[in-house]
């Protein structure tokens, strides 16, 4: 690399360009790879509070009756989402290791069929790894006819391995209106007719 080149060697420019372009392409790909990498990283460390998908492992742990953890539920609506959406149980004390079922209430008060999708987030994020959902309405989209209401179940287990200093977990769901995306993907039944901006 450092050898003197009296002829202002043009020969190796091609090689430098090739290496640099490889670097550029590699880093561009790396930028995109950050997306799955970040997800994997979050799944391992739980840093962004995004709870994982369905918990498949066998529940072999006995419930730890000596310890109670408070699990608190929050519900928010995304922008433009008009449903009434709230937890039926606001908070519950559980023993780590026991499966617990709670319900969320959703009602579509509008005059058209809509599709909702709940996005979970857990705080403190450190607890994410120890919060297992065996069944959750957030695994699927939630279609509701105009005026229809429903109670949506969530079954979860708090891992007995949950660090001692965590005594309260807050699980928050944000419900987003996915009607338009659902419409685009085929179910073109109730197209929105209100076109004017208000």
């Amino acid at each position, binding site marked *: 690399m450092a050898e003197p080149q009296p002829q202002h*060697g043009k020969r190796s*420019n091609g090689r*430098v360009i090739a290496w640099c372009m490889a670097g550029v392409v*590699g880093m561009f790909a790396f*930028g*995109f790879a950050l997306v799955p990498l*970040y997800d994997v990283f979050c799944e391992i460390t739980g840093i962004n509070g995004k709870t994982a998908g369905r918990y498949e492992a066998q529940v072999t742990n006995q419930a730890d009756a000596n310890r109670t953890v408070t699990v608190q539920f929050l519900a928010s609506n995304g922008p433009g989402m008009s449903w009434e959406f709230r937890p039926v149980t606001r908070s519950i004390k559980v023993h780590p290791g026991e499966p617990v079922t709670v319900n969320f209430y959703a009602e579509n008060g509008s005059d058209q069929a809509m599709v909702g999708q709940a996005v979970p987030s857990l705080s*403190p994020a450190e607890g994410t790894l120890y919060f297992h959902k065996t069944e959750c309405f957030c695994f699927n989209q939630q279609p509701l006819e105009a005026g229809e209401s429903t109670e949506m179940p969530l079954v979860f287990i708090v891992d007995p391995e949950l660090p001692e200093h965590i005594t309260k977990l807050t699980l928050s769901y944000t419900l987003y209106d996915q009607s338009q*995306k659902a419409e685009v993907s085929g179910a073109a039944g109730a197209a929105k007719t209100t076109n004017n901006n208000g």
Partner: protein
Amino acid sequence: MSAVADTHSQEHHHGPAKGISRWLLTTNHKDIGSMYLMFSFAMFLLGGSMAMVIRAELFQPGLQIVQPEFFNQMTTMHGLIMVFGAVMPAFVGLANWMLPLMIGAPDMALPRMNNWSFWLLPCAFLILVSTLFMQGGAPNFGWTFYAPLSTTYGPPSTTFFIFAVHIMGVSSIMGAINVIATILNMRAPGMTLMKMPLFVWTWLITAFLLIAVMPVLAGVVTMMLMDINFGTSFFDASGGGDPVLFQHVFWFFGHPEVYIMILPAFGAISHIVAAFSRKPLFGYASMVYAVGAIALLSFVVWAHHMFTVGIPLAGQLFFMYATMLIAVPTGVKVFNWVTTMFRGSLSFEAPMLFAVAFIILFTIGGFSGLMLAIAPADFQYHDTYFVVAHFHYVLVPGAIFGIFASAYFWLPKWTGHMYDETLAKTHFWLSFIGMNLAFFPMHFLGLAGMPRRIPDYALQFADFNMVSSIGAFMFGVSQLLFLFIVVKCVRGGEKAAAKPWDGAEGLEWTVPSPAPYHTFSTPPEVK
């Protein structure tokens, strides 16, 4: 090194073509360097006038001149234009002019690409600036364009903004490849890596940083483009995306970008301080290692821009420690500069004035950077005017003063004339006072609780804002003086010797002033 005689007879102007095609088609590193510098100064004035709008609005509480929508467009465009239009092209311009002269090469390694990479820039900025006239206005989400404000909630012009960023990214990458190829392949015989001038070293490392992070920037804006136009959900929580991911990717680019804007100035300042101290630079090797260390560390500190987003404790601690660590190599550089001055034989021409101001004010910016690195304290500083003060203290005296110092230092070489020293010193003092008046009170504003990017503020912030605005106007107006000085210097003035600064070292001073259109057609021998 002082072997080459300086005679007018060596000025042979058989090179440049005449008229517009000289500039459109040129592959000459000096022409392209000049175009980069002129373009960057034009952008500096444009971005600066936006800053004037901002400071005029903030002169008093209440909304006087512009509405909040337009104010946000101004802060956004000011940031984008200054970072990508003024500072980065100015350093590329300096690199174009000086790298071949410093390493004894006849031109850049890839002259054709050099021409392309320059002409992409005006195209990119034409697109960016045209967004101001589009329906819905220019980008208004800050130069950091956090999602979802810039995606779901962005104005229609966001797509053009993304396109502009892509083009300027391509331009920077091409420029960086050119710099790397030039430095690796075109050095004069005998110039080993550890004999390279520091400006060459810092630019080599900068170019690697550019290659590493500009594609990441291109990636993040591409993801935005897809979120906006193709229904993906990289950053949209409703589709399973994560707005915080945007910040991680952006700052993975953004933090090294900060060093891209400062490292070449480190190099230039090292030459200037040594030249006007008439003493060799203290600790050349440690300077090189320090720059390398800073560049490497810059990849593992990005989340210090995100201490309040809710990163878990372990992450906060890691990024806090890593960030604090950067103070060590940066400190080494400052100590080296000061020791270079110590027991020298100092004189204070304009380049040295700017260089000394650079060291003092950049160090102050470094101190506030260290304070910001302390995560718990950052909860109070974050997104306040303290941050605005901090990064203007590193970028204005850092990047901009570094560029001014370089410009005055090498103007005699470029034009063949000495600039007007009295006017240049006036320019320095006006800039120095204006800059401090504008940005020092911002520390107080931030500590007192004024958030950044607000068009109007509570009454307790009124006094310092007024002081700051006055300083900003002063700084802004004095830059017109710089334009005048440069034009005057180009048109005439005292003839400059090949080596107008008695303490200066380096191959560039062995060619006559102005540097002939073609230099080092036969490589010089470096011992």
